[in-house]
């Protein structure tokens, strides 16, 4: 990758060590994606906010960065570990480290979004706008449904882009790379609900090495709930950053069959049942809350049910009376956070959880190390209320 004279100077330390590091990261990811140059981006979405994901090294690193720089472009941030406005029994260590992380991002000028679905909260730039999105599900969703142009960024590459306002001009930021070469055929398999969409994404992500693939047997129009589910499933298991749906001409096709789908489900769904129901990975939006409300209206959950959503969506739902209606089922809202690596769910307090999210199931099983019963929302409501 070629840097301009000005960029070379910053890489060599003319603006200090932090800017030099940011350019080292951009240079490395530019080399990895075979970019020719850096180009401006309009929006960065940064992951690495929950203390459980970045640890002590991350806390110290972010504080050091925050002492030296301010973000140059609009920057939103991923969920943190818990809801500050709710009582909790988390350790003092977790709480103080989590607050240091929040302070560092604030100091750098991040919008306090604490959301993995920034595309549901903020005014969207027009199609074709280059952005830098970490948070795998948001990168895949924004490329595939909103026409924003991002590679599947990492926590550190999106941070470098927030600091410099630039990203490599490569791969999914170039129009020609956004045409799939490989199609995933799903004809003949039952895809009836959001969990099936999530599993399809999860299976495809394991197979595909390309950055853009096609689901040629799916309808080109997709509702919000399956769209979020398939994006997050794909982001969880693979390195693919975009998909198209609907028929396109491709040079290679791979068929996914029922056997692969049930194998993936068996891998993720390790338990018949669970102590607590978790919704919201990615965090639920208004359309999903409305769907849940329609299912649960007049009924009560027979066990604890936690809904993870952004503060913004929660407040909207509160305003239109939706939040209190959902709460009358016994479900509770948990804002600013997400189930993945949540400190609220541990081996010590939970044997297994119930969720409709494939992404949630994967992280609950592999990071939180609890059992998982993976079922779609309709089945969950029917079974546990």
């Amino acid at each position, binding site marked *: 990758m070629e840097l301009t004279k000005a960029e070379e100077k910053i890489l060599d330390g003319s603006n200090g060590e932090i800017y030099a590091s940011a350019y*080292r990261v951009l240079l*490395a*990811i530019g*080399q990895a994606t075979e970019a020719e140059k850096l180009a401006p981006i309009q929006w960065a979405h940064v992951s690495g906010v929950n203390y459980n*994901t*970045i640890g002590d*090294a991350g806390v110290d690193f972010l504080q050091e960065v925050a002492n030296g720089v301010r973000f140059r472009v609009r920057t939103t941030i991923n969920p943190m570990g818990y809801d500050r406005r709710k009582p909790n029994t988390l350790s003092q260590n977790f709480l103080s480290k989590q607050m240091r992380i929040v302070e560092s991002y604030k100091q750098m000028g991040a919008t306090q979004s604490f959301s993995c679905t920034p595309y549901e909260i903020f005014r969207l730039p027009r199609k074709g706008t280059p952005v830098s999105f970490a948070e795998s599900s948001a990168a895949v969703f924004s490329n595939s449904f909103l026409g924003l142009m991002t590679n599947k960024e*990492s926590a550190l590459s999106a941070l470098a882009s927030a600091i410099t306002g630039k990203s490599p001009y490569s791969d999914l930021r170039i129009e020609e790379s956004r045409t799939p070469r490989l199609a995933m055929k799903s004809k003949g398999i039952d895809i009836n609900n959001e969990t099936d969409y999530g599993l399809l994404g999860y299976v495809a992500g394991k197979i595909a090495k390309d950055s853009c693939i096609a689901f040629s047997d799916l309808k080109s129009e997709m509702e919000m709930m399956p769209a979020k589910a398939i994006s997050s499933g794909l982001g969880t298991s*693979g390195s693919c950053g975009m998909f198209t749906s609907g028929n396109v001409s491709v040079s290679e096709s791979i068929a996914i069959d029922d056997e692969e789908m049930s194998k993936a489900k068996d891998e993720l769904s390790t338990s018949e049942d669970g102590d607590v129901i978790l919704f919201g990975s990615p965090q639920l939006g208004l359309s999903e809350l409305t769907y849940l409300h329609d299912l649960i209206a007049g009924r009560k959950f027979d066990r604890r049910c936690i809904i993870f959503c952004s503060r913004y969506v929660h407040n909207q739902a509160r305003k239109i009376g939706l939040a209190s209606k959902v709460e009358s089922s016994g479900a509770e809202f948990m804002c600013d956070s997400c189930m993945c690596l949540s400190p609220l769910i541990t081996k010590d307090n939970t044997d297994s959880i119930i969720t409709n999210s494939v992404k949630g199931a994967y992280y609950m099983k592999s990071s939180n190390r609890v059992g998982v019963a993976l079922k779609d929302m309709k089945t969950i409501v029917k079974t546990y209320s």
Partner: protein
Amino acid sequence: MYVVECKCVVKGFADGEALISDTPINFLTMVDARNGEIKDLDHHLYGKTLKDKIFVFPYSIGSSVGAYTLYSLKKKSSGPLAIICSNRMDITTASGCAISNIPAVYLKHNNIPQVIRNSRALTVDGAGEQILIYPN
């Protein structure tokens, strides 16, 4: 000795033994950020550590936060000496190596080359875009 050409992502030299993963890696869920051990029970390298090894794997998958795992390992002196991605290098691995000064290169192979599997030791020469392979 064999020589394999590679593409450089992060410059630097490293000599050491290879630790080879046949499957893609999710750094956040599969690697213990405290000591570099593979903690995924289903992984064929379960219990082995990346520490002081040249870690060879196809590419990384999943979480964007995995870059911090590489950084945490480096801070704890438990990181790999170098990284070789055999298929292509993803952004999570590239950025994690860049911030941690871990030499990183990639090949464009569908499979991990047999000469690397049969090696006693490797030298990764990032800037020179070469991997020197000392056979068993």
